[in-house]
């Protein structure tokens, strides 16, 4: 062999696959010389002829259609009938594909398509044999196949084996015996939970001699919470689940409650029909519960945009197309996407049918632009059980407190001491908010270190008090604060002011005041438009005038309402902003009417008169309304509202009396708000009240609308169940109709792929005519029907597979097997392939004891090399800076790792995790040097090796030999052979010697990762064992399911 390893595998696999095809061919030839249309002819027609003679009306030449029986056997434009059953020599089809004149030869040479001699022979033979026509296998509902008789004395466990053995025997192979118990337990534990078995579990299994030992294990694993996580993780590839929107800014999105719903559904063994219906149409079920709504997140997982300049209409179309493609890949195993632009070239799906499916997903309430928001609506709050209890408790407490306050208010005796007085004259005057020090609670911020400088002395002008604040800077610069606990109340017609002193030698270009009432969008500037919000000239940045004179104190004054601060607004922050120069600032304040004195406030009458005059905002709506009614006209409720407010909030004596209860009410309310704020939400689907009309779109272009279409399912895949509504719910029910030819087959095939690495139909995403035919069609049908009959019982179906003798075979491969069946499609041996990315990392965390195994919750950010997001992220994106988590969050299962679509975690993608931008039901499985580098050097794996070593030293026994056995069993399940053990002893001694000589190396090597090291262990020894653990974690066997 001389090709390199970069190309070696794919090429060999291709080559071997070809040989395999020939092998099967020769088998069938032995069995019978009969040509089967579906197996032998349709793939040729579809691949070489359908481009021009297939379902796509627009591309069809000479009205000859070779995808429909009636058409294929009727007259073409030429007046000829292409196929003459029984006589190939008289069939124009044969003469055209063998024609010498290149102008007449089919397929036309310029198409780049050719027919091999063998294919021509097949076509000939088929016609000679009568040209029997059949429908594509996958579009015909499965029929219950007869389970084959067992082959001689080969051990079988269930019907699966009968089907498999038939094929193995025909190929002249024999099945492998059952794998040894260690291999078997590791295999089935990894397959059902995504984690390896512990030594204890292994010992229990080895000690159990009963015939049911294995079944007990399977049942235990199927009930483990880890099972649901593992199955969900695979499903999430199909759902294209991720934690960011995916397009343009790629901001964070919150939809992980949907992810957790999937986990729970598997752990509850939700039947697959319910699982389907809730995800596609949970919102349309009668009185849907929270879970059913959250489930619809499935079709909110698609990528979305909010790029400036995008056209809504275009994205409504793109999202609906994505949903059709995803739904059809996952449930139909069909590549519907082709039909978005034109009739499908190979499968019977027309463009019209595509847009009829599209119509189901075209009328959602979502907006085309996600707004770069965490929760672009529709979304729903998803409290945990604990949060629900807390909510209830707080609400009860609040009810109790309010009743108590009510009672005390009713009992309170108040007599206005000065019911006859007139209101003293009210005058507007300056009130300085703060001088020389910031108001209570204010958090000083700004450009540069120590942004707030209060100065005095010779060289500094001061307007009032002891100091002024000063700033010198280049460009746009400022000091400011937020968080003042006693806010500055704004009343009607109030103005805000501050004093400035501009340095004559270094004047700024702009001075600007900014006010914060929860938002900073209230600004006023003098001079050039170079402050914050430049270019707007509205309340969020209003020009007040030219730059004030320099070298003197000048008062800057802004009517509060002109910058959007109306009566009732409360300021908690203030910014002093300038463009360049040196500016002194002093005495910010408000021009307002002086507040009432305590004595005046003791009179409700005076207070009411004051309010009438001053129109101070900020009162509860109900109170304000009551006050607006002329005092004589108020009804009892209004009078009570005013009195209550007065007693609780205004009167100096009564406010004291109520303070404690009111504080308690406020505290509980705050707690409730905090709690409500902490409850996560999840994106869901929701139907528009008025449906949006779908059209056929020429070439898939949103601008090229053609005929309007309404929602419908393709008839050739079976009818809608009776009485089902024609909406997404109807679509989901149609998919789960037991008569449906595809859903069950496609689903069991994906599970088969999960266990054996390759589906019975290898192209698990494509069951159409261009997809690969099943290696065991009868088995596929048998499994599908069995799945339907069981009530779509997912756990049962999987148990059936892992209980089979086929699954339990040893995976050792002989050269003979390798040559006859390189890809193990015949299953004459057990499955063996590299573990998925997530399992590789999870396994390392698990055996090292680092794993933090809680179920669900927000996604986490474990280690990733620095500087991956910054070089690609949009500056304004909230995922442009990666902030690594710490503590437990570093050690969650990989399915909880935060998935940023435009820069996914490299240790995952290196091991072929898909990018989650589109639906994926089959992962690649490559073998590359970059994978070696991850396992060699990723801090996650180095740290795990150290923690693994600590475990080895603590729990592995006393001698090196015991420890090595412990380590080996922990990670690959089995005991090392004598030869392996000898080698490992040598290596271990070598590491010990090397680290023994190099203290620095020891310290450095043990410092990887955040977790503290066990100081009770000798460092040099720990380093040596860590190195051994590191070696074991790199074994091919470790990352392979065997």
């Amino acid at each position, binding site marked *: 062999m001389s090709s390199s390893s*970069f190309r070696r595998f794919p090429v060999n696999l291709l080559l071997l696959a070809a040989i395999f095809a020939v092998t099967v061919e020769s088998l069938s030839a032995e069995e019978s010389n009969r040509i089967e249309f579906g197996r032998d002819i349709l793939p040729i027609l579809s691949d070489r002829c359908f481009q021009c003679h297939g379902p796509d009306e627009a591309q069809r030449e000479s009205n000859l259609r070779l995808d429909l029986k009636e058409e294929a056997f009727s007259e073409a434009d030429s007046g000829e009938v292409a196929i003459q059953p029984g006589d190939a020599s008289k069939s124009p089809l044969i003469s055209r594909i063998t024609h010498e004149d290149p102008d007449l030869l089919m397929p036309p040479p310029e198409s780049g398509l050719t027919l091999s001699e063998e294919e021509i022979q097949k076509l000939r033979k088929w016609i000679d044999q009568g040209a029997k026509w059949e429908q594509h296998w996958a579009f015909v509902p499965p029929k219950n196949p007869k389970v084959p008789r067992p082959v001689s004395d080969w051990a079988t466990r269930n019907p699966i084996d009968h089907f498999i053995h038939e094929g193995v025997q025909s190929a002249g192979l024999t099945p492998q015996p059952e794998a040894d118990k260690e291999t078997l337990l590791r295999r089935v534990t990894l397959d059902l939970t995504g984690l390896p078995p512990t030594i204890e579990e292994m010992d229990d299994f080895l000690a159990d001699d009963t015939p049911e030992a294995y079944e007990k294990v399977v049942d235990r694993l199927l009930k483990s919470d880890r099972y649901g996580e593992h199955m969900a993780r695979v499903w999430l590839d199909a759902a294209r689940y991720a934690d960011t929107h*995916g397009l343009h800014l790629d901001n964070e999105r919150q939809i992980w409650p949907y992810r957790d719903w999937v986990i729970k559904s598997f752990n509850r063994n939700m039947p697959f029909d319910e699982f389907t219906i809730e995800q596609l149409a949970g919102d349309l079920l009668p009185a849907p519960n929270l879970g059913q709504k959250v489930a619809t997140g499935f079709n909110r997982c698609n990528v979305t945009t909010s*790029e400036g300049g995008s056209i809504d209409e275009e994205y409504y179309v793109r999202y609906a197309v994505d949903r059709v493609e995803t739904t059809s890949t996952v449930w139909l195993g069909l590549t519907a996407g082709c039909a978005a632009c034109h009739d499908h070239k190979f499968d019977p799906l027309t463009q019209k049918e595509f847009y009829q499916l599209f119509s189901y997903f075209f009328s959602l309430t979502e907006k085309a632009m996600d707004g770069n928001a965490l929760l672009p609506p529709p979304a729903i709050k998803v409290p945990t059980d604990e949060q629900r209890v807390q909510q209830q408790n707080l609400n009860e407490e609040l009810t109790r407190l309010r009743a108590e306050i009510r009672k005390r208010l009713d009992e309170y005796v108040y007599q206005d001491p000065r019911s006859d007085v007139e209101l003293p004259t009210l005058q507007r005057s300056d009130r300085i908010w703060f001088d020389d020090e910031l108001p209570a609670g204010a958090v000083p911020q700004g450009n540069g270190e120590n942004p707030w400088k209060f100065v005095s002395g010779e060289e500094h002008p001061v307007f009032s008090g002891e100091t002024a604040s000063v700033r010198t800077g280049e460009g746009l610069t400022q000091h400011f604060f937020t968080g003042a606990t006693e806010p500055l109340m704004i009343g009607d017609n109030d103005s805000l002011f501050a004093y400035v002193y501009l340095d004559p030698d270094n004047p700024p270009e702009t001075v600007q005041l900014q006010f914060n009432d929860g938002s900073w969008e209230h600004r006023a500037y003098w001079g050039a438009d170079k402050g914050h919000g430049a270019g707007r000239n509205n309340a969020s940045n209003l020009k007040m005038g030219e730059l004030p004179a320099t070298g003197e104190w000048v008062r800057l004054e802004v009517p509060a309402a002109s910058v959007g601060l109306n009566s009732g607004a409360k300021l908690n922050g203030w910014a002093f902003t300038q463009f360049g120069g040196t500016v002194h600032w002093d005495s910010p304040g408000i021009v307002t009417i002086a507040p009432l004195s305590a004595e005046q406030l003791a009179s409700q009458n005076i207070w009411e008169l004051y309010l009438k005059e001053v129109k101070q905002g900020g009162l509860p709506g109900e109170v304000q309304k009551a006050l607006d009614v002329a005092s004589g006209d108020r009804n009892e409720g209004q009078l009570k509202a005013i009195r209550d407010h007065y007693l609780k909030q205004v009167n100096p004596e009564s406010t004291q009396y109520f303070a404690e209860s009111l504080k308690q009410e406020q505290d509980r309310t705050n707690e409730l708000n905090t709690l409500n704020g902490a409850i996560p939400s999840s994106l869901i689907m929701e139907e528009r009240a008025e449906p949006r009309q779908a059209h056929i779109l020429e070439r898939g272009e949103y601008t090229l609308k053609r005929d309007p279409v309404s929602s419908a399912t393709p008839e050739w895949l079976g009818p809608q169940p009776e009485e089902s509504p024609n909406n997404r719910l109807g679509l989901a029910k149609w998919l789960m109709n037991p008569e449906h030819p595809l859903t069950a087959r496609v689903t069991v095939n994906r599970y088969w792929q999960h266990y054996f690495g390759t589906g019975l139909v290898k192209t698990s995403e494509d069951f159409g005519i261009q997809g690969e035919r099943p290696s065991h069609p009868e088995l596929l049908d048998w499994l599908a029907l069995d799945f339907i009959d069981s009530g779509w019982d997912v756990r049962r179906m999987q148990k059936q597979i892992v209980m089979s003798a086929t699954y339990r075979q040893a995976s050792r491969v002989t050269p003979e097997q390798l040559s006859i069946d390189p890809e193990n499609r015949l299953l004459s041996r057990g499955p063996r392939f590299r573990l998925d990315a997530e399992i590789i990392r999870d396994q390392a965390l698990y055996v090292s004891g680092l794993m933090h195994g809680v179920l669900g919750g927000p996604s986490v950010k474990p280690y990733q090399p620095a500087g991956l997001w910054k*070089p690609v992220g949009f500056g304004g994106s909230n995922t442009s800076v990666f902030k690594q988590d710490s503590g437990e969050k570093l050690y969650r299962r990989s399915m909880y790792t935060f998935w940023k679509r435009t820069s996914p975690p*490299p240790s995952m993608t290196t091991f072929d995790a898909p990018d989650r931008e589109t639906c994926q039901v089959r992962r690649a499985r490559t073998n590359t*040097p970059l994978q070696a*580098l991850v396992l060699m050097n990723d801090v996650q794996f180095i740290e795990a090796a150290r923690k693994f070593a600590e475990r080895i030293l603590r729990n592995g026994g006393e001698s090196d030999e015991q420890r090595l056995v412990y380590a080996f069993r922990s990670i690959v399940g089995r005991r090392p052979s004598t030869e392996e053990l000898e080698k490992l002893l040598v290596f271990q001694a070598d590491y010990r010697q090397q680290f023994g000589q190099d203290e620095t190396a020891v310290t450095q090597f043990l410092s990887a990762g955040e977790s503290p090291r066990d100081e009770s262990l000798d460092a040099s020894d720990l380093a040596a064992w860590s190195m051994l653990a590191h070696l074991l974690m790199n074994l091919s066997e470790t990352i392979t399911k065997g």
Partner: protein
Amino acid sequence: MNTQHPLREAALVETRRHFFGRTAGGIGTAALASLVNPQLFAGNRDGTMDRVGGLEELPHFAPKAKRVIYLFMSGAPSQLDMWDYKPKMNDWFDKDLPDSIRNGQRITTMTSGQKRFPIAPSTFKFDQHGQHGAWVSELLPHTAGMVDDLAVVKTVNTEAINHDPAITYIQTGSQLPGRPSTGAWLSYGLGSMNENLPAFVVLHSTVNGGFGGQALYARLWGAGFLSTRHQGVSLRSNGDPVLYLSNPQGISGKMRRRMLDELAQMNQSRYDEVGDPEIQSRIAQYEMAYRMQTSVPELTDISDESEKTLEMYGEEVKKPGTFAANCLLARRLAERGVRFTQVFIRQWDQHGNLPNDIRRQCGIIDQPCAALVKDLKQRGMLEDTLVVWGGEFGRTIYCQGGLTKTNYGRDHHPRCYTKWMAGGGIRPGIVYGETDDFSYNVTENPVHIHDLNATMLHCLGVDHERLTFKHQGRNFRLTDVHGNVVKDILA
């Protein structure tokens, strides 16, 4: 390509098995690796070789270029201020773009709210350069000096009008995520020319020491439905140049070597037991990883470059991660046989304050671009290296935001913009295609981005219609169902 009959393959496996059986524990890794992969030592010491991987039937015809360096200006530079000289526009200052010129072109929602579309003539001076007298703006003095080596294409066009879809489109042939990127196609079709380096390398450039600007996406160098081994590998200027390249602290090179030898022994004995050829491949991949640990630092260490060379690229070349440093690195990658190197630089999205910002950007790229072409030429490598320069779309003649004689902004423009190509297979010293007086519409020789990609593949000896991959029952290709090779710009 050498194919191996599976039975002979199996026999070989057997032989190896015996070999290891006898020498268990004592086998040198080099020998082991060469057994697994004899070609590993067929090449040169730095790992370069004629070809490794790729499809048997490729190239379809004799290639002019062996490799590509693609200088990608993300954000879309203004053709009007750099390349597409429109002197008549000076008379049109602040006049409205005629509807007859706009002719129904969709406008982004960033300017669709504007009441007017006033013409903003370029504030920069243009002069003719080179033997063919190409007009180049004063922003590009160095590039202007090399213009006789370039084919400047003024009529590149696309349908996409927003960054994400447009850059995805030009890089993958589709506006929607999911397709392989250009480099991945080449890795898949043509394989690599260096055993120790990835076939497809991506370099991100800093601007003034930081990043920022329009976002980039992993899909732009992703493998789509091709095997993930074809995805671009980012060569980084901070931390490990290739992710996870460095041994952990405390593990010396010597220790790593021993550990890998031991690992190979363990894996080998497992192979003897279970016979899975994937284990052999795994052993070889570890060897290659080890080799990358030395070859990559050699690659990024520019201490062997002459002062003269460094000067040519300018001061910034000594700062890792700058565009200048990346251009030099691109040349070093090309020397080492990397098939496709893509250098990204962002911050060309100049909706406002364009004259200042474009001056800064051109100041960053001009000298290194010219130096790269010159450097390749001096080394005789321009002949078989294709250099491509440009962005995802162009910019409008009309102003976005406030317009003065010296300040303006420009919105996105898909109907025509300028890119240049140079080197392997490209006719030097030409300006191709013509646009109207407003640089708004193509008047002569349009080059769609599919055409551009088809032409790029053509230079590499690849018929863009025949480099396909069957996915979901359909043969996909970089140019979708479009694309014509632009023969007029071929040498």
